[in-house]
């Protein structure tokens, strides 16, 4: 299943607008400010909601589609709200060779989302990253900004368990086994 694109409630929308306006005040109205503005707004809001993008376009006096074009071009920017926890699976060369793609499959299966999506309860978001410089610990998953080494499918379940997320079916299996 894919993450649903939640409609942002209007109160939250208004708040996004105000936050964006406040950030914009610190920047010149030149085109070269666009990417730094987007970085700062995303840093504050966690993602780039539509209302923030229109504010930015107005401020820089450029078409909204130009802002959208830049946002979708760069991997750093995200269009949906982040989860409470971020899971980034390394798919750099060393991690690939040690089965990083198998780990990614395990995350996808467990969270029920694809990379660049957020679970419906907004607990987790999933993404991939190309090498975080800890290649010797491959396969690496960055959990809430902390690189974890040796994350194979069993570790995926372990990490989820540490967040209090038991995989229901497994529980059933275990009790059957007793």
């Amino acid at each position, binding site marked *: 299943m894919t993450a649903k694109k939640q409609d942002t409630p209007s109160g939250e929308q208004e708040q996004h607008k105000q936050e964006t306006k406040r950030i914009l005040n610190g920047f010149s109205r030149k085109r070269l400010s666009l990417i730094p503005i987007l970085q700062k707004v995303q840093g504050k809001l966690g993602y780039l909601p539509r209302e923030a993008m229109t504010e930015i376009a107005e401020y820089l006096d450029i078409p909204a589609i130009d802002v959208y074009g830049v946002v979708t071009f760069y991997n750093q920017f995200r269009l949906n709200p982040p989860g409470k926890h971020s899971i980034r699976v390394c798919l750099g060369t060393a991690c690939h060779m040690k089965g990083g793609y198998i780990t990614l499959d395990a995350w996808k299966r467990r969270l029920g989302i694809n990379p660049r999506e957020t679970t419906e309860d907004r607990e987790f978001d999933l993404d991939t990253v190309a*090498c975080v410089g800890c*290649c010797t610990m491959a396969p690496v998953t960055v959990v809430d900004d902390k690189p974890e080494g040796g994350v*194979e499918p069993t570790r995926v379940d372990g990490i989820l368990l540490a967040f209090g997320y038991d995989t229901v079916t497994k529980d059933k299996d275990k009790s059957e*086994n007793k």
Partner: protein
Amino acid sequence: MTAAKPDNGNKQRTIFICQGTGCISGKSLEITEALKKAVAEHGLPGVKVDFTGCHGFCEQGPVAIVEPEGIFYACVSVADVPEIVESHLRDGKPVERLFYKDPVSDEAIPYHKDIKFYNMQQRIILRNCGRLNPERIEDYIATGGYESLKKCLKEMTPEQVIEEVKRSGLRGRGGAGFPTGMKWEFCRNAPGDQKYMICNADEGDPGAFMDRSTMEGDPHTVLEGMTIAAYAMGSSEGYIYIRAEYPLAVKRVRLALKQSEEKGFLGDNIMGSDFSLHIHVKEGAGAFVCGEETALMASIEGKRGMPRSRPPFPATSGLWGKPSNINNVKSLATVPVIIAKGADWYASTGTEKSKGTCVFALTGKIANSGLIEVPMGIPLRKIIYEIGGGIPGSKKFKAVQTGGPSGGCLPESYLDQPVDYESLAAAGSMMGSGGMVVMDEETCMVDIARYFLSFTQAESCGKCVPCRIGTKQMLDILERICRGEGQPEDIDLLQQLGENIKAGSLCQLGQTAPNPVLTTLRYFRDEYEAHINEKRCPALSCVKLISFYILPDKCQGCGICLRNCPAECIAGDKRMVHVIDQEKCVRCGTCLEVCPERFGAVVKVSAEKVDVPDEPIPVTAEKPAASAT
């Protein structure tokens, strides 16, 4: 622990903990804190706790060096702190169990200078990395830092600086290897009063991290090199474009900029001369193609980072249409040394056409992985077997990949080739920005080609058709082959597509993207053929072509695999031979990994059927000898 030997208690010692990204992820910040606390508690006035940037030996991290002895500690943890402080820092007795162990001889090596990984290197670019505190400009100055800038400003004309760099033979370390001095000269001679100096720190190769380590470990070298370059070209504005995923590098470069401005090494009228330079930091936003120079400039301008055709070259029309010069971090970090020691000194290292040293991020199936700096011309074999310590686990070497997604895979017969721009290019690979990945018999070459191509395909900016459509087609074919659905004509098709993309793409991303495929086709064609004709993956790596089976004559029915299988596709019960449901199995390999070694009941095969029961049956296997004794 025996009683203290008080005679050593006051000795002057400094312990340097590595605070590069790798070691920080291994908790080196916590170790630093614990050391400071323990040193204070023991009241050791002569002992200082300090930190450095990356030593390039992250796999042994967190690492630490104790000076003046030069004792090197590997894999340090917070729990080791009391022993280090009491035994070594207080009593002068180094902690032997933390010494680095040579993977070949298994010998413990106390001194940094004796470690093969280091003593076979020749460090010019990385000369200060791991040797000084990157957050203190005074440390850099104490090693002679900013003297080269002074020499340029006080004793040399810009033309003389260019001449010196030209004579040194320095070539760009960003990939293409264009002579640096010549690039500066083009820009100097281009008409225009505003010129831009740009440092390319976008480091996009997914297996390389030397630019990051240089900025984290020795940011002032990069700034000094950049300032000298700007002086030579007559530029008063500079940009450093740093990859967004490198927050620590951004932080240290910003700090270095501030310190350098405070000292008057940057800003207006540098060192009392009439040369001024202002440098700005731009954070990239995560697009590999932005490492390409014209795309990078578009990105600084706030646009989508798409390459444009050249000419005009940046030297005449670059950032905002002004003459611009762009250099890689490593190229710039070399410049202060060339000025200090002279072009002849620099040119005495390396080969006829490739001077100086090159840095590689050595990873993959190799005993010592990390950053290495070696003279140009060194044979690959020496890097892999002497510095790298060979392939671990007595596995067989298969290939070495250089140049990241733009490079190629070279087989064993190339191991005695010298490493330099020309010979790597002649073999179908390239120097690139320095990734070097070692592969053994368990690495599937078709899959590796598919991996690199999926990377470049996803990063193609989409501006030109051969790259956008062509890489997608190639990727589709490779995926099909890896799934076991390849057709005999696919090999020729890949070859043709690859050549067309190389010839027809606008920028080097497209022009080099087929290299991993073309080189594996050239050197490892048999693996493609096995995938296509026999539906077999010789390396047992392609998920769709392998199967896992539980051997009925080995399984003890312990149930460990069943409990760990993420797909819940293993059937069994106590003292029953377990059986894998092949339809549901996702081939994650967990069962093989968790089945106790003494049972060894799980096997991985490709294009082979193993005779197993359909349903769990009672265990008949005898208890293995190991558990009986």
